[in-house]
C-alpha cells in the first residue's frame, strides 16, 4: 500500500512554498542584490559591485559591531550555559533529592521567569535600573556610601556594553537551566554515586559524567543562544542606540540604522548579508562538529 502513498500530496505543499518564495526567498535574494548597489530607498539603485563590501572591511564601526556581537556571545551563550549547567546539576542533586519535585519546579520556574518576557521589555526594566539620576543601582550605591562607584552606566563608554551584558546574563539564564534539567532526567544516578564513592569531587562529576551525557542539549543551547547573540537588536535599540560612539553598536542595529535612519540601503543590505553569512557558517560548522562527534561516540 505504502508505495502509492506519496501521490496526491503535492498540492498541500503549494501554499507553503508560494508563501515562502514571496516572504523569505524573494526578499532574501533581493537583499543580496541591493548589497551590490548604492541606493537611498527611492529612485533607481546604482550598481557598484563590491564597493559596499570593500567599505565594510575598512569601516571601524562595522568591526566594532561584530566585536560587540562576540562579547554578547559571552554574555548570552558562554556564561549562561556554564551557570545554567552548574545550577541545573545543583538543583537536581541537592534540591530535587532532598526537598522534592515541587520545590525544584518552584526554583526552576523562578529562574526561568525573565525568559517569558519580550527582550525589549526586559531592556526597559534594566534601563530603569541603570538610570543615572534616580535609577535604583546608583541610588543603592549612594545610600550605602559607595558613591564613587555610581555612574552613568549606559552613557559611559567603559560601562555601557557591560551593563547590557549583565542584563543579558540575567535574561538568558533560565533557558539553559530548563533544557539541562530536562536532560538530567536521563542521567543514571548510580553513575554519580559510583564516582562519588571513588572520590570524585562534585565538579569532576559534573565535567566527566554529566557533561558527556547531556552533550546533545549543550550543543543545542550553545548554537541557539549564539545565533540569538549575533541577531540581538532590542536591548541596544532601547538602552543605548549603539552609543556612546560605537561602544554598544551591534550588526543588527548598524544595518537598521543604514536602512532607515541614514538612509544608506545598499550598505545596510551589505551588513545584513554578511551577518547572514556568518550565522549560516556558524550553524553549518556546529552541526558538522556535532554529527562527527555523535558518529565517533556511536562507533
Amino acid at each position, binding site marked *: *500500500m505504502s508505495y502509492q*502513498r*506519496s501521490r*496526491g*500530496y*503535492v498540492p*498541500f*505543499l503549494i*501554499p*507553503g*512554498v508560494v*508563501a515562502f518564495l*514571496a*516572504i*523569505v526567498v*524573494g*526578499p*532574501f535574494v*533581493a*537583499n543580496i542584490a*541591493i548589497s551590490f548597489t548604492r541606493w537611498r530607498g527611492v529612485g533607481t539603485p546604482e550598481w557598484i559591485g563590491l564597493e559596499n563590501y570593500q567599505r565594510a572591511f575598512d569601516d571601524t564601526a562595522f568591526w566594532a559591531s561584530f566585536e560587540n556581537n562576540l562579547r554578547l556571545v559571552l554574555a548570552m551563550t558562554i556564561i549562561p550555559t556554564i551557570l545554567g549547567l552548574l*545550577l541545573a546539576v545543583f*538543583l537536581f542533586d541537592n*534540591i530535587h533529592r*532532598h526537598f522534592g519535585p515541587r520545590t525544584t519546579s518552584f*526554583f526552576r520556574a*523562578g529562574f526561568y*521567569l525573565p525568559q*517569558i*518576557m*519580550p527582550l*525589549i*521589555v526586559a531592556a*526597559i*526594566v534594566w534601563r*530603569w*535600573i541603570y*538610570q543615572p539620576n*534616580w535609577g*535604583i543601582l546608583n*541610588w543603592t550605591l549612594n*545610600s550605602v556610601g559607595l558613591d564613587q562607584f555610581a555612574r552613568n552606566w549606559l552613557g559611559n563608554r567603559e560601562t555601557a556594553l557591560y551593563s547590557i551584558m549583565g542584563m543579558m546574563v*540575567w535574561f538568558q539564564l533560565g533557558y539553559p537551566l*530548563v*533544557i539541562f534539567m530536562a536532560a538530567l532526567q536521563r542521567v543514571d544516578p548510580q553513575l554519580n554515586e559510583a564516582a562519588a564513592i571513588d572520590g570524585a569531587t562534585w565538579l569532576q562529576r559534573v565535567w566527566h559524567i554529566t557533561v558527556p551525557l547531556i552533550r*546533545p*542539549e549543550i550543543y543545542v*543551547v550553545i548554537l*541557539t543562544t549564539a545565533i540569538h547573540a549575533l*541577531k540581538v*537588536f*532590542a536591548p541596544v*535599540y532601547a538602552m543605548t542606540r549603539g552609543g556612546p560612539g560605537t561602544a554598544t553598536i551591534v550588526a543588527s542595529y548598524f*544595518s*537598521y540604522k543604514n*536602512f532607515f535612519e541614514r538612509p544608506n540601503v545598499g550598505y545596510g543590505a551589505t*551588513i*545584513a548579508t554578511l551577518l*547572514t553569512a556568518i*550565522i549560516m557558517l556558524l550553524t553549518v560548522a556546529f552541526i558538522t562538529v556535532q554529527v562527527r562527534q555523535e558518529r565517533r561516540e556511536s562507533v
Partner: protein
Amino acid sequence: MASEAIALEKHAPRKQMVPRHILATRYLSLLLLAVLLAGVLFPLVVITLNSFKTEDEYFRSGPLSIPERFSLDNVRAVWERLDYTVKLRNSFIISITTAVAGVTISLLNAFALGIGKIKGRAFFLIFFVMAITLPQESLAYPLYYMFKEVGLYDSRWSIVIIFAVLHSAFGTYLLTSVFAAFPDEILDAAVIDGCNKVQLLLRIVVPINWPSLSVLFVFFFIWTWNEFFLPLIFLISNANQTVPLAVAMFQGQRGAAATFQSTAALLGVLPCILFFILFQRTLSKGIVAGSIK
C-alpha cells in the same frame, strides 16, 4: 530471603537518621539558592513596588521602600497614555491570527512532507531549516519596500503575514519529524476505508496530533507577542502598535519619570506572566521537545 533483603534495602534510607551536619548543609544550600532566586526576581519586584508609589514618595523614600498606600493612579495614567487597551487588542489580534495561520501552513507542509513523504522532501526540509536561522535583518528592507508597494505597510496584516510564514519554518520542521513517526497502519486503514487526502488530514492526522499542534500554537502566539524588530519597522502608527512596541516608545512625563516608566515596564511584563501561568505545562513540554527534535 532475597526478596526480604531487597525490601529492607528499599526502606532502609528512610528509617536512617540523617546526621545533623548533613541536614545543615542541605538547608544551607536551599538558603543559598533562595538568595540567588531573590536576586533574579529582584528587578521584577522593584518594578512592581514602584508602580504603586507616587513620584513624590519615590524621591522621599527611595526605590526600595514598600508603598505607603497602594495607589492605582500610575497604572490608570500610564494605561491611558499608552492607550493600553488598544495595544492589548492589537497584540492579541496579531498573535492569535499569526499563530492560527502559522500552524495551518506548518500543518499543510508537514502533511505533504511527513505523511505524504513526497519526492524531494529532504530538499524541502533543508530549505525550511535554513529559513529558521535566517536573521530578519536580511529580509527587512525588501519586505518593507514590498509591503509599501502593495499598500499593506503600517497594517497589522503585514506583521501577521510575515510572521505566519517565518514561524512556519520551525513548525514545518517540528511537525514533519512528529508526523514521520505516524503509524502507517492507521493511514493505510483510512485509505482502504475510502478516505481522501483532505479527510485523512482533517479526520485522522489533526485529531491524533492535536497536542503537538497546540504546543506549536502556544509557541507561535508567544513568539509573535514578543517580537520587536519587524513590528518596529512596520507598525508606525499608534493605532496599530503592539504592547512591547508601545512600552519601548513610552516616554515618561516630567515630574513622573521614575514611577511612570516602572509602571509602563510592569504593563509590558504582566501579560507575559499571565501567559506563563496559563501555558506553563504546554510550554515546558514544548521547550524540551523543540530543543531535542
